[in-house]
Every structure is written in structure tokens, then in C-alpha cells.
């Protein structure tokens, strides 16, 4: 009788069929790794049907408490595209500034509160805070600065309400934005310290398989615009996304796994962005990356904490540059008349590529919507990594193996918060 073990991690024990990890081992050999970590936003896709296209940014912002700006941005990109509108440059740059706030907030949360404790031998941020309060306070201060940017530009720190199709309801004045300069300068210093801090952690050797996929733009480190590119030569517009990527429905769960139509696995997020767009980082961020020992590309998921830290420097630096160059737009938004058709929008959420597609009629009613969040796109890559981690460490007892699996998942900063976040861990032996 072979020994069979099932190791299960239920993130969302109260929500059936959602948010769990199951590893099946037989005689020390991995039979299967199944991750149900994220519920695709189907409820929101259904909620959007029949609503006016102007409501999409507000509704989709509520999908995630951590990356509402990403959802708003991909939504307005798609809807402005179908209506044939390109927003004036000052409005685009204001959106980029808002997005920088979200990157700062989200990266600070993940680096300090969730990821760093893994490298330092703590079970979580609370334990870390007892031993190193000033370090954790630095992370909280960074996060707060991100919130301040989001509040001022976006209208409210969580679920900004100021973004609309065509621009903003209200554009901040130069004077208002100047109030962010000092906090952002301090945040940039804290971000540089963050890079130095995380660069000294010890990183196990690991290499992510598959293609790295991110937005890319010739003029800047892509956030709110760009083409979808990969390190394997893919270079497509948002409108071609569905021709190259597909979501396959996984039996026994609600999960949809994204993969290339030719079957290949890919990864999006900080590692992909850094590898594809490193040369478009600001000089300061690039120097920080060099000093941290990051090469021209990075495929080690453990080192994603360093890449996030470098992106923190970049987001602060870029926010300061945008504020310095800010010119109040003549009007906060341009009018957008609905045009029947299908629109496609992408942007770089802190966790990676976020794809939206909307079909609207001539009155502006949404006929259908499709939203593919980064965590769904990364699911197969995370599973492949878990499979390998479990295979190499099958001899560990259940608890240590589960810790290792959790760390492995954390390397990818999955957006559990997009769902509810209950956690119940269970280990079964069979």
C-alpha cells in the first residue's frame, strides 16, 4: 500500500470551491498540484452586463481593495479605444501618477507586511515589528505615501472615485500636487533603503520556466499603456490578446487558467516587467537595481522582492517627475460618445498584466465584459513552481512542506484580497 499524502491549504474555507491548494503525493512522488487561489471576477462581468459604459471604471474598481486603479485604467483604456478617443497627454500623465500611488501602496504592503518576514525567519509582520519596529514603520510610511497620492488624485484611497471614461471628474491643481513632493521625496529615500535591505536577504536558487509577459512601451517603464510583449518575441496590441492567450476551465473548481493558445505557460508581474523594460527605469532606479546585484533579467521568484523594491524607487521617482512636469489640463475630461463595437484595454497592475474587453452598443450599454486578472494569468506558472518545490522536498513533514508551499506562492504576490481572505489550513494524510 503506497503512502499517500494530501496537503491542503484552504484560503477561503467559507467559500466553497475557491481559494485552496491541494498537493497529492503518493510514495513521495508528486501526483498533482492544484491551486484554486483566485476566483475570476465573473460576478463583476455579469454585473456589468446591461450597465452604461460610463459605470465600468467605478464598478470594476471594487473588484480589488489593493489594485482599484489597475481595474479602472484597463477599463477606461478599453472603453476609450472602442469609442475612438485618445485622452490628452496631461490626463494620461495624471492617470500614470495615480497608478504610481497604487504601485507604491501595493508593493510596500507586500514587501514589508507579507514577503520580508519569510526571508528573516518570522511568521509574519507582527513578529517582525516586535524586533524591528523602525523597519516596519518605514514600510507603513511608504504605504501611506502611496495612499496619499491615490487620495489626492483618485479621490479616495481605496476605490478611487475620480476616474471616468474620458479623464477625471476633477483634475487637481499644481498647488495641490506640490503637497505630495515632500512625502514622495521621503518615500523615495525609504524605497532606496528598502532595496538595500532586501538585496541582503538570502535567496534560494530558482528559475521560473515559461515566457515572461508584460506591457512594454518605447518611451517609459510601461504602467498604464503599452503593447503586450514577451521575452520570447511576442509583440501584440491589447486587441490581439484573445488571439494569443486563452483561459481554460479547470475541472473541480471555478478557476480559469490562462495560457498561450499554443499551450505554453507564462508569467507576468515584476520579474517580467523588469526583464523586458529594465532599460527604461529611471537612472536612480536602475542604479539601485545594479547595486542590488540584479542582472539584465531576473527569473528567480524569490528575488521578486528586490524587483518590487526597485519598482518602489521607480514609482516614487516617476511620481515626482510627473508632479514636476504637471500642467493642469484645460478640462478634466474629454467627452466620449459611445460607439458600438468591442474595446480592449490593458495595464500593469502591481501583480502583472490586467486585461479587459468590453462589447458595447451604440447607446453605450455594455453587452458583455471579460476581465483577466494577473493572478489568473500566473496560476499555471505558480503551480509549475509548486510542483517542482514539492518534488524536491517531498521528504519534509507536512507542516514544513506547507510552509514552503506558502512561501512559494507568496513569491508571486497573488491577489487573495481580490477575493475574501479567510484562511484555514488543513493537512490530510491518506
Amino acid at each position, binding site marked *: 500500500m503506497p503512502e499517500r499524502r494530501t496537503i491542503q491549504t484552504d484560503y477561503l474555507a467559507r467559500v466553497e470551491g475557491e481559494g485552496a491548494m491541494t498537493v497529492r503525493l503518493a510514495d513521495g512522488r508528486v501526483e498533482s498540484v492544484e491551486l484554486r487561489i483566485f476566483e475570476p471576477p465573473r460576478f463583476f462581468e455579469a454585473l456589468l452586463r446591461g450597465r452604461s459604459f460610463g459605470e465600468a471604471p467605478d464598478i470594476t474598481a471594487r473588484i480589488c481593495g489593493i489594485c482599484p486603479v489597475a481595474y479602472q485604467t484597463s477599463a477606461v483604456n478599453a472603453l476609450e479605444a472602442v469609442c475612438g478617443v485618445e485622452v490628452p497627454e496631461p490626463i494620461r500623465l495624471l492617470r500614470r501618477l495615480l497608478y504610481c500611488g497604487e504601485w507604491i501602496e501595493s508593493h510596500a*504592503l507586500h514587501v514589508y507586511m507579507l514577503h520580508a518576514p519569510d526571508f528573516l525567519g518570522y511568521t509574519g509582520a507582527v513578529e517582525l515589528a516586535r524586533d524591528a519596529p523602525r523597519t516596519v514603520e518605514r514600510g507603513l510610511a511608504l504605504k501611506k505615501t502611496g495612499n496619499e497620492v491615490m487620495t489626492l488624485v483618485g479621490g479616495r484611497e481605496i476605490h478611487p472615485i475620480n476616474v471616468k471614461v474620458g479623464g477625471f471628474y476633477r483634475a487637481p491643481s499644481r498647488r495641490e500636487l506640490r503637497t505630495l513632493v515632500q512625502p514622495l521625496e521621503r518615500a523615495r529615500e525609504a524605497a532606496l533603503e528598502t532595496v538595500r535591505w532586501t538585496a541582503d536577504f538570502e535567496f534560494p536558487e530558482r528559475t521560473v520556466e515559461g515566457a515572461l509577459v508584460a506591457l512594454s512601451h518605447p518611451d517609459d517603464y510601461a504602467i498604464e499603456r503599452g503593447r503586450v510583449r514577451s521575452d520570447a518575441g511576442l509583440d501584440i496590441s491589447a486587441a490581439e490578446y484573445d488571439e494569443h492567450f486563452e483561459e481554460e476551465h479547470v475541472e473541480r473548481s471555478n478557476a480559469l487558467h490562462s495560457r498561450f493558445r499554443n499551450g505554453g505557460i507564462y508569467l507576468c508581474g515584476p520579474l517580467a516587467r523588469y526583464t523586458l523594460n529594465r532599460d527604461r527605469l529611471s537612472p536612480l532606479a536602475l542604479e539601485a537595481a545594479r547595486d542590488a546585484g540584479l542582472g539584465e533579467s531576473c527569473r528567480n521568484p524569490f528575488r521578486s522582492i528586490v524587483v518590487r523594491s526597485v519598482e518602489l524607487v521607480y514609482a516614487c521617482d516617476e511620481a515626482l517627475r510627473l508632479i514636476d512636469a504637471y500642467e493642469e489640463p484645460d478640462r478634466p475630461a474629454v467627452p466620449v460618445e459611445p460607439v458600438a463595437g468591442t474595446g480592449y484595454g490593458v495595464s500593469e497592475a502591481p501583480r502583472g498584466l490586467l486585461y479587459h474587453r468590453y462589447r458595447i452598443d451604440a447607446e453605450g450599454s455594455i453587452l458583455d465584459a471579460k476581465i483577466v486578472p494577473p493572478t489568473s494569468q500566473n496560476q499555471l506558472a505558480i503551480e509549475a513552481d509548486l510542483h517542482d518545490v514539492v518534488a524536491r522536498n517531498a521528504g519534509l513533514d507536512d507542516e514544513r512542506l506547507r510552509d514552503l508551499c506558502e512561501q512559494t506562492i507568496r513569491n508571486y504576490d497573488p491577489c487573495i*484580497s481580490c477575493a475574501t481572505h479567510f484562511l484555514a489550513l488543513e493537512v490530510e494524510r491518506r
Partner: protein
Amino acid sequence: MSTVVIGVGNAYRGDDGVGLAVAAALQVLVPARVSVVACEQEPSRLLDAFQGATTAIVVDAAASGGVPGSVYRFDASRDSIPAGVFRSSTHAFGVGDAIELARALGKLPPRVLVYGVEGGTFAAGEGLTTPVRDAVGRITAAVLDDLEG
């Protein structure tokens, strides 16, 4: 002296919206000296809301396996909230984590009361289930009592 009431939750996750519903109800009932904050989903923001407060009252949905609509009250200034009551995960920060982090950093207000409302469903969808909706009035009244006390 300042007092803050914080409702935590997600209105698109069934009973997870209860904290927000209580905050909305209190918004029009509390005295002017009390600020009411809605915290949608990302509870590490509690630390910002605690800043400068001498009293903080937090309301969140609970998932401890009890009867839906049950209301729990904890005095977090005295003790930690038992594990497994509020949402938490190793990939996200929960109310309990935020309170313990504030305590570790010496940033916990002197008086912190936490209400948990046992949820029936947290599946995607709008609206509270009947037992949880019925609890909103009870907690609102209890919080108003706390504010007087």
C-alpha cells in the same frame, strides 16, 4: 480626544459587507466629534485610521463557524482577538493582524473595541443575508452605547 468608528468589508461579497452597512448607519447618528470610516477590503489601512485616536471601534464580518448573525465583542485594548475569528491569510492582512501590528508598534489607541458579525455567505454578490441584516441595528445601537460610555 478623538474617536473613530471603522467599518471593514466588501459590499460585493455578501455578508462581508456588514461592517460597511454598520458604518453607513452610524454615519448619520454619531456626534460630530466621532469620525466614521469605511475600510473596503485592505485592513492594514486601520493603522492609518488609528492615528491620533483615543478610542477606536472596529466592525468586521467574522467567520468562526458560529450561527450567522451572531455578534461578538472584543476589548482589543486588553487582549488579542482570538485567531480564526476575522478574515486573515498568509497572503493578506486581516483586522486581527492590523490590531496586533499596531500593538507591537505602540500605535494602538488606548481604547479599542472590535465587533464581529458572523456571516452566512461570503460568495460574490450584493446584499446581506437576513440574520446579518438584522444584526446591523443591534450593533449600531451597541456602538452608540459604547460612544456614550
